[in-house]
């Protein structure tokens, strides 16, 4: 039943049976529908809201118009090529500037909005190329030389391209790439820590959808045979946004069908109402944003049988145990060493010259009163926050100054305090993204099958949490303790040299915490990562810690075995009145 969307191919065939006028509309509206679906893909699936879609569409239409009118009718093919390259190129530059590591959702939306404002005015003023207000008219239809498609055949080709594009997008959304995009949308920081190159994911989807929109704009011009500044302007952009929202941006067919349906329902209205039409569009838009932001598409999805939208099964296998990694390196075993780590939040110094060292297979527990800087150490080491100074390395592999995903790829794995797994993915999909994150670039994810091999230690955690039997279950359906276990398994799914655990037992029952403690000990013994645990649960610390470091006011107060630290008078002083009350 999942193949149902191939039925969409019947839409272009309509062009053979209806009058010239209506087949032209089918072609145009199918293109607009695919444009809305592309916007849904970048906004709803990948979480990148932008107004560039209308610029891409307009740039495409103008390039086809200009090349066809200036280089002869066959110039339109070159125009289509330019449409794709130009919009893709501009999107790439915008993406580099706005979707990189300083990405801010608001700022990027604003930047693209400003681009629309500028381009709309340029289209009006740059008369030599764009024809100003009058636009470019008499653009030829698709064809070669004197042979040109008739209006309805041109529409048939356009509608076919549009439908194939939507089907292609649907396929893309089910590949590991599409699934990873959704995870990046929901938990960008987490995915970064799994080694996913988050900026590259965002930029790739922005460039891809923009270039495709440029192509659609170019094709659109061959049907209307006319381009004007309104094809690049905000009013048109609003319409596309309305279709996308009404059809539900988290679906692809929704926006596609919404655009076609709304356009057919209102055919002719926009010409007869003119100014009132835009006013109505604006009011509808505000009402949708305020009362119906999810759109109608998701309602439809909810009433469909659930087996129609089952997530793909992920084949999870257990990797053969490896020889301990440090044995391979000659001479002294490499250590995880942190030197002179300093972090400040504004003028507030949180860490001052902290130094740590952990051997493979050793478990170091970081404790200290609230505000001592424990979590800050982990955030700094995994590059989630910027450090002022400091160096950290495993063996001769330096980590400082690198982005989170590079650090993850170099074998430093991290579990956050609050489970931040992607809840609308299955357990297996979450594990798969954790395995692939450090290994594959996004291109590889396009062709990757849903099969993974995870480390024995990760498998052991799945078993302990009862997750090995729930691989096809949505993560949203798991209990808190199980989510913690899944998150830990994800951190260990690939071989790692350094494992950072931020309050792994938070929110767990006593029994779960005890199981976790023995798991941590076993993992350290067998897989031999250097482990740093930040924890409040003293029982867990007593069980797992080979060594304890006490932080206070951003510096190391004491260091030693659990017993030594417990006996230290300074530690007792630091803790009395804070931790002592908690027991």
């Amino acid at each position: 039943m999942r193949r149902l969307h191939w039925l969409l191919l019947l839409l272009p065939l309509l062009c053979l049976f209806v009058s010239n006028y209506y087949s032209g509309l089918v072609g145009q509206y199918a293109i607009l529908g695919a444009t809305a679906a592309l916007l849904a893909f970048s906004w709803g699936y990948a979480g990148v809201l932008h107004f560039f879609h209308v610029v891409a569409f307009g740039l495409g239409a103008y390039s086809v118009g200009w090349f066809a009118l200036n280089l002869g009718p066959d110039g339109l093919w070159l125009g289509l090529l330019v449409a794709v390259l130009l919009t893709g190129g501009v999107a790439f530059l915008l993406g580099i500037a706005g979707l990189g590591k300083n990405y801010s959702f608001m700022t990027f939306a604003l930047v693209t909005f400003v681009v629309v404002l500028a381009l709309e005015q340029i289209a009006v003023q740059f008369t030599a190329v764009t024809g100003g207000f009058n636009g470019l008219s008499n653009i030829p239809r698709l064809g070669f030389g004197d042979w040109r498609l008739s209006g309805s055949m041109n529409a048939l080709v356009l509608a076919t391209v549009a439908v194939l594009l939507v089907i292609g997008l649907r396929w893309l959304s089910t590949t590991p790439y599409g699934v990873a995009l959704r995870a990046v949308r929901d938990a960008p920081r987490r995915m970064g820590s799994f080694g996913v190159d988050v900026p590259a994911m965002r930029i790739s989807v922005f460039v891809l959808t923009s270039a495709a929109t440029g192509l659609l704009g170019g094709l659109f011009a061959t049907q209307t045979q006319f381009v004007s500044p309104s094809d690049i302007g905000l009013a048109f952009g609003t319409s596309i946004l309305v279709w996308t929202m009404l059809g539900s941006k988290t679906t692809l067919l929704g926006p596609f069908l919404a655009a076609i349906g709304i356009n057919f329902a209102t055919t002719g209205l926009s010409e007869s109402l003119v100014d009132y039409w835009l006013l109505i569009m604006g009011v509808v838009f505000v009402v949708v944003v305020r009362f119906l932001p999810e759109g109608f598409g998701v309602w439809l999805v909810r009433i469909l049988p659930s087996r129609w939208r089952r997530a793909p099964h992920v084949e999870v296998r257990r990797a053969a145990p490896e020889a301990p990694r440090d044995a391979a390196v000659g001479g002294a075993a490499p250590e995880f060493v942190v030197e002179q780590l300093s972090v400040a939040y504004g003028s507030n110094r949180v860490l001052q010259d902290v130094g740590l060292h952990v051997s493979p297979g050793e478990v170091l527990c970081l404790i200290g009163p609230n505000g001592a800087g424990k979590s800050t150490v982990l955030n700094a080491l995994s590059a989630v926050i910027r450090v002022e100074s400091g160096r950290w390395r495993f063996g001769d592999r330096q980590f400082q100054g690198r982005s989170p995903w590079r650090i993850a790829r170099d074998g430093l794995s991290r579990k956050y305090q609050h489970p931040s797994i992607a809840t609308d993915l299955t357990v297996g999909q979450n594990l798969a993204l954790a395995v692939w994150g450090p290994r594959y670039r996004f291109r590889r994810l396009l062709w990757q099958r849903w099969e993974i091999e995870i480390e024995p230690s990760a498998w052991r955690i799945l078993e302990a949490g009862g997750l090995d039997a729930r691989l096809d279950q949505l993560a949203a359906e798991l209990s808190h303790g199980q989510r913690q276990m899944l998150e830990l398994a994800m951190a260990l799914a690939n071989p790692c040299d350094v494992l950072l655990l931020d309050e792994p037992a938070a929110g767990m029952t006593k029994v779960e915490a005890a199981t976790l403690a023995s798991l941590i000990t076993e993992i350290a013994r067998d897989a031999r990562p250097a482990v740093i645990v930040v924890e409040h649960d003293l029982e867990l610390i007593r069980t797992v810690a080979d060594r304890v470091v006490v932080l206070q006011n951003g510096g190391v107060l004491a260091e030693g075995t659990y017993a030594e630290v417990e006996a230290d008078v300074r530690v007792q002083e630091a803790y009395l009145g804070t931790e002592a009350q908690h027991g």
Partner: protein
Amino acid sequence: MDVVINEVLSILSSAAIASVIALGLGITFRLMGIINLAHGEFMMIGAYAAVYAGAIGLPWPLGLLAGVLAAAVVGALAEVLIVRWLYSSPELSILGTYGLSIVLIQGVQVTLGKGYLYSSNPFPGAIEVFGVAYPIYRLVLIGAAAVLFLIILLLLNATPLGTKIRAVAADGKLAETLGIRSSRLNLVVFTASAALAGLAGVLVGPLGNVRPDMGADYIFTAFVIVIIAGNSIVRLIPAAILVSTVQNLMTFWIDPMVAKIAVLVIALLVLQGLRRTPGEVTV
């Protein structure tokens, strides 16, 4: 030499206008995390109110007041009816104000017509500055912008109200546990921002024409300034001067379109080169 002085004054007065518009945008962005795409339309409302006040014979100061009030009322209504419900989602707040801008432009167009209106200049004539005759009105604008910035910064940093507003900006939920009614303060901030837009609208009236889509002429520059300044209000001033300098010089010597693209490129470069302060979350 005269050309230089003339150009410097032009840049300063452009920067003054742009910075006042950006100030209104900047306080909602900095304090509420909201980018108000209808800001230019609040300006337009203010400008219309002043023109109509002038038409019934009210003196200029009352027209100014009318513009500020009209924009403030529309802003407050917009906050209560739309924006307030969208705070939890930044994308919906952007889209909501975007829809609002279309409604306002088209609403005014349908009811009051597309025609251009003109507002009279309250300070006609020129005065000699360093040997150059310069319109008084533009000099007044520079002074007005400086005073406005001073008032807003003092209000935010040296009054109890300012402290509360900044507390809500930092964490609305937390502020509520301290007994601060954050929904009320958000209304105050949004209304103040709209009032500033209305004021800016009245001020730019005499420089050009008043029409439903006049906001678009000014809002581009203001958005670019906000992008460059980030979420800092003080940084709006150097950003406004930088953008106005580039835009004025390139418009004068090269082409207005090239000037637009140039400031856009500057904004993108700043965005790319932004180095966050240490300790801030980077992803």
